[in-house]
């Protein structure tokens, strides 16, 4: 009885310990950023879309069918001319675009076509195909909310990974490339 009574008095402490455990987890979990929302589309088929090319750019637009047509892994990057962080990851995109064992596709998000074109002409076009999405409809179907975002889609058209925000060299070499490699060996 007495022990039972004591447990009741210790209950607030026990509950608090559990709650603090969660706090501690949330603060110390590496890479946890409450502002970054994990995608619900991971391991789901990429959405249907068909995006027109940027007029005057020497690469075509692309549709969902282009993700599964050539048996390659696709990296789909969401970019815009007004997006300053896109500039930061651009050198890494250029590097990635040199690989021909993958598709590097760009979606020009919420942009005037002429602005997107001018931006690519000025900074270089790393993409094998670029689709324009001025009203962000394709972006919404992809669950895009911040620019830049980068998706990895496997050869069957299934989304396997999403990165929100600019990629730095560390992200590219530490995360993106290993995922591509492991998908290629599958």
């Amino acid at each position, binding site marked *: 009885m007495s022990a039972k009574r004591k447990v009741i*008095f210790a209950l607030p*402490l026990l509950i608090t310990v559990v709650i603090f455990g*969660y706090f501690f987890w949330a*603060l110390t979990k590496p890479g946890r950023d409450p502002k970054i929302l994990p995608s619900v589309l991971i391991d789901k088929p990429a959405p249907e879309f068909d995006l027109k090319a940027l007029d005057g750019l020497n690469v075509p637009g692309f549709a969902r069918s282009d993700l599964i047509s050539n048996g390659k892994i696709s990296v789909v990057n969401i970019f815009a001319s007004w997006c300053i962080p896109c500039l930061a990851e651009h050198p890494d995109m250029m590097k990635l675009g040199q690989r021909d064992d993958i598709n590097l596709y760009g979606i020009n998000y919420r942009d005037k076509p002429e602005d997107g074109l001018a931006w690519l002409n000025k900074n270089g076009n790393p993409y094998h195909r670029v689709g324009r999405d001025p009203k962000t409809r394709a972006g919404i179907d992809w669950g895009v909310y911040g620019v830049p975002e980068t998706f990895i889609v496997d050869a069957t058209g299934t989304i396997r990974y999403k990165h929100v925000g600019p990629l730095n060299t560390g992200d590219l070499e530490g995360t993106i490339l290993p995922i591509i490699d492991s998908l290629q060996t599958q």
Partner: protein
Amino acid sequence: MIAELGQFALIMALLAAISQSILPLIGAERLDSRLMAFGSHASLVQLLFVILAFGCLTQAYIVSDFTLLNVAENSHSTKPLLYKISGVWGNHEGSMLLWVLILALFGAAVAAFGRNLPVTLKARVLAIQAMIGVGFLTFLIFTSNPFTRLLVPPENGQDLNPLLQDPGLAFHPPMLYVGYVGFSVAFSFAIAALIEGKVDAAWARWVRPWTLTAWIFLTGGIALGSWWAYYELGWGGWWFWDPVENVSFMPWLMGTALLHSAVVVEKRNSLKVWTILLAILTFSLSLIGTFIVRSGLLTSVHAFAVNPERGIFILILLAIAIGGSLTLFALKAPALKSGGMFSPISREGGLLLNNLLLSTACATVFLGTLYPLFMEALGGGRVSIGPPFYNKTFIPVMVPLFFLVCIGAYLPWKRADLVGVLKRLKYAGLAALLALLIAWYISDGGPLLAILGLGMATWMLLGTLSEWADRIKLFRAPLAKSWQRAKNLPGSSWGMTLAHGGLAIAIIGMISTTAWKVEDVAVLKPGETLSVAGTDYRFDGVKEITGPNYSAVEGTFNVSQDGVYMATLKPEKRLYTVKRMPTTEAAIYSTFVGDYYAVIGDPDGKGGWTVRIYREPLVTWIWFGCTLMVFGGLVSLADRRLRVGAPADKRKKKKVREAEA
């Protein structure tokens, strides 16, 4: 030099706090009166040094000393003086310094006003108070130093976030902090009582005024914050169940429960263990609130710039404070002697029910605020918990509480006759029913829940008034006698009537503005009129104006009803030049029956402007009701102070009064 002085003062304050947290405790154990008395002196010294530090930082802001990192990051030389001063706490470091200042203030106040406290209790309370001070001073000095110098000072500062450049910043955070931190006194008293192993009516009498003070400020702070969020666009209106709003609301709910349960301890010597627990939980929730706002754990509209290291530091502080106090509770509370018995239908029973419902409400808010985190930790994905959740869970808990408030006020101690009480409330009930029908008729059948809610709030208001009328025998005795009785009514009794009535009025405002808000948006050219809810808003065009640190477009609206002029509204669209950040300043014409709220948007390029008009019925009742609650608290506090200051004297006075009556 000033900044170094501030830095030095902080370190001195820390040293004072450290000695204050150790020596009086030893003194209380050994019954050494010199060591015990040391606590009072140290708390004063601590306060003086914190004031000095705060003064130094304020000075740096006023003279725009950009060699200080904190000033350079959050101020600008063209910023108006009011925002230079209030900008001191418009950032993490400065607001933490304000926190520490208020904590020291409360410590010194306990030392100054607690002259007739038992010496050991006083020594222990001051020591606990100082321990909290040590924690937060350490946090301030080692992770959030406001006096960090810049090697290369910039020519000018980065300015304060324009959304914060508002008179709201001058009053809302300080009031809120006095509320949060004020509960530390109840906490310290609870811990001291656990150490001493004694809780009695006298203890409750000591704790109540401090709890009440904190409650008054917290109520005022929350009300001001909600008003600020109401007129500032993009903050989700007067209440959005934002995590930061919730963390201020949880201590309020618990503190309100504590105020009520402490009455039972004071009057009936019962519910002691529960009251101690409430005192600990109330301040713990204040601490958790501070932690959540500053650690970046959750996203919110109002959060501070975040830094995970600070988060860990506060978390450890909290673990020590909350974990330590609850451990002490688990060890010592079972030995506390239980007190007076009572029947479930009694004043005590009513207050217990009040506590049950308030605690459940608080748990609901807690769950809603932190559940996303728990789900994420368990790998359940991310969820948002917003108003729809609270409407379904929080309101059903509060409805019975509101319904029972005026019944509870009628119940006598120990044992009550419920039927008799209900009979005395029959007129209030009938009147509330009538109000319900009128509301139903006026709103044309309107939203049923809102109408029922209005009926309930009217019941609460009239029931409260009827209890007050019964007390002074209004209309049952000659008016002069009623007047005499009203004058002799104790302050706490007046306070209760005012607070309960104020709450009812605030609820009426909340329901009305939620259910019957009208809004419209249109593109207007100068000279055109938009009619919203029977009121005409004639758009008289825009002009460009320049403020001290912004440029703006100001629209002019002529508001009239049936051709009768009512007001001129001048909403603005500002661009703050330093941050290059646009803000929208609404223009509001407030009346007793509702607000006329105008916002100017973008030009359409063809001579028209996007215009937004809102009609918010009875919205001002929310803050009027809150003001009454605060006022009720003050009246009650005035009474308390008398009684605490001179209990014997008061009894004599009462006897004299009784003899007169």
